[in-house]
């Protein structure tokens, strides 16, 4: 039993490699920050594409739905490996795009970000969609009846209302995204899991992994609590009732 504790809770190992693992964790946070911003933007874009009305624009809606369905289904790890394994060989792309080294971040960083954005763009699109579709249809009808175009109605009436329903589920997606940044370790980005595994093979001890886990918990637990609070607040609003009869 004491062997177990030594494997996972060796404080000397944790202390000696604290700085390394922390630097690695900052990589996770950086990947997260970049990927999150881009994924949220992509998701909104996809969600709006999906709402385009009219028979003529059906192909666009169809392609958008196909994209979302596909990338919600394929495991992120596969996408990461395919991008890093394949993109360098796409000879029609210029070198700086094939093997990106932008802003001083090495190529696995960008391959990882790309994969995460592609997938989490799809997930967040669904969250936006739920928010938009939760807005009663009458709002769109009223806006259109007043002469607003589809885009005007979306922009001024539907989306502003839709986004209020979004924070809780979106935050859940973001938490997921933060954890999934560890997948980029598989293409040799020096983030916390990779560093911990290095320490593991060097010291033959898993305590560095425990340390990494602790970092994640410290950041994510408060966020998860915020989500819970948001959901509770939404529930309260719904049961208190809103519109129509306030006689």
């Amino acid at each position, binding site marked *: 039993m004491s062997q177990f504790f030594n494997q996972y809770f060796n404080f000397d190992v944790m202390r000696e490699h604290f700085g390394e693992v922390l630097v690695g964790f900052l990589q996770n946070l950086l990947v997260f920050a970049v990927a999150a911003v881009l994924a949220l933007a992509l998701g909104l874009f996809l969600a709006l594409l999906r709402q385009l009305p009219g028979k003529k624009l059906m192909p666009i809606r169809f392609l958008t739905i196909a994209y979302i369905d596909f990338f919600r289904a394929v495991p992120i790890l596969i996408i990461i490996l395919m991008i*890093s*394994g394949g993109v*360098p*060989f796409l000879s029609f792309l210029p070198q700086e795009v*094939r*093997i990106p080294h932008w802003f001083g971040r*090495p*190529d*696995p960083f960008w391959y990882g970000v790309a994969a995460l954005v592609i997938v989490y763009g799809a997930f967040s699109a669904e969250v936006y969609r739920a928010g938009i579709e939760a807005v009663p249809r009458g709002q769109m009808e009223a806006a259109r009846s007043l002469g607003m175009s589809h885009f005007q109605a979306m922009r001024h009436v539907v989306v502003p209302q839709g986004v209020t329903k979004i924070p809780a589920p979106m935050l859940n997606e973001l938490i997921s995204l933060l954890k999934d940044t560890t997948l980029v370790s*598989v293409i*040799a980005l*020096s983030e916390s899991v*990779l560093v911990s*595994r*290095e320490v*593991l*093979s*060097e010291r*033959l001890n898993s305590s560095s992994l425990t340390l990494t886990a602790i970092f994640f918990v410290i950041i994510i637990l408060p966020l998860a609590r915020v989500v819970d609070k948001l959901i509770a607040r939404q529930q309260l609003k719904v049961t208190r009732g809103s519109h129509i009869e306030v006689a």
Partner: protein
Amino acid sequence: MRKSRLTALFAVLLLALAAVAAAGCGGGSDTTGTSGGGGSAEGGGGGEPLTVGSDIPYPPFEQGKSPDYEGFDIELMEAIGEKIGRTPEFQDTSFETIFRDVAQGKFEAVISAATITEEREKEVAFSDPYYLSEQAILVKEGSEIGGIEDLEGKTVGAQQGTTGLELGKEKANAGELRPYPEGPDAINALKAGTVEAVIIDQPVAQNAVEEEGGIEISESVPTEESYGIALAKDNTELLKEINKGLAEVISDGTYKTIYEKWFHKEPPKQFLG
């Protein structure tokens, strides 16, 4: 009434557990009987099985798919097995935990192009050396990189947990040193162009140059490393036997045959019979 129901449930559970256990023991895809490149159906010593861990693939030391693993390490282990009356059963396992695993008894021995180092000797026992190695710097054909000093500021790949990575950390002033999960991953990255050089065991590099095009060895770095078979520290009996078997394999020329087969040259003097 109740009692018989309970008994029945218990019997079903027991049966289910037995089925799971049976499924787990037989035919796991990464355990294998011996079936080495030698082509003979009898394979090893026909004795008690000897569980051996190895990080596969790492050509030319270990490669192939269960149960037909082959390579220098594989054949050497089988030859030793024959001498001591044991049949090696190989388990594919990840290199970064391989020493801890053998120390904890997950398998009885490890043969995996593993360099004998002081650090590792704290956790495991090593057999007598069975291979003299050096590291090599692998680059794309026509690259300007020459020796280890040319790696300064460059992006360099190596395998996680290896002495190649260690060498990179100590001697190369690389701009970025990337640890890949598997050796071949680093080599693929070199071919893709995402790293400019790879530091890896010389024979592995040599094999890669022969098998794949477009890459070459720019320099070999002698490190006076030797490989050993790793065992749990308290397994002194088995250690003695393996050392004995190894000595016999060397002295009767089997070692030379295997060596020449995989490395296309004569083994160093200390390994000639």
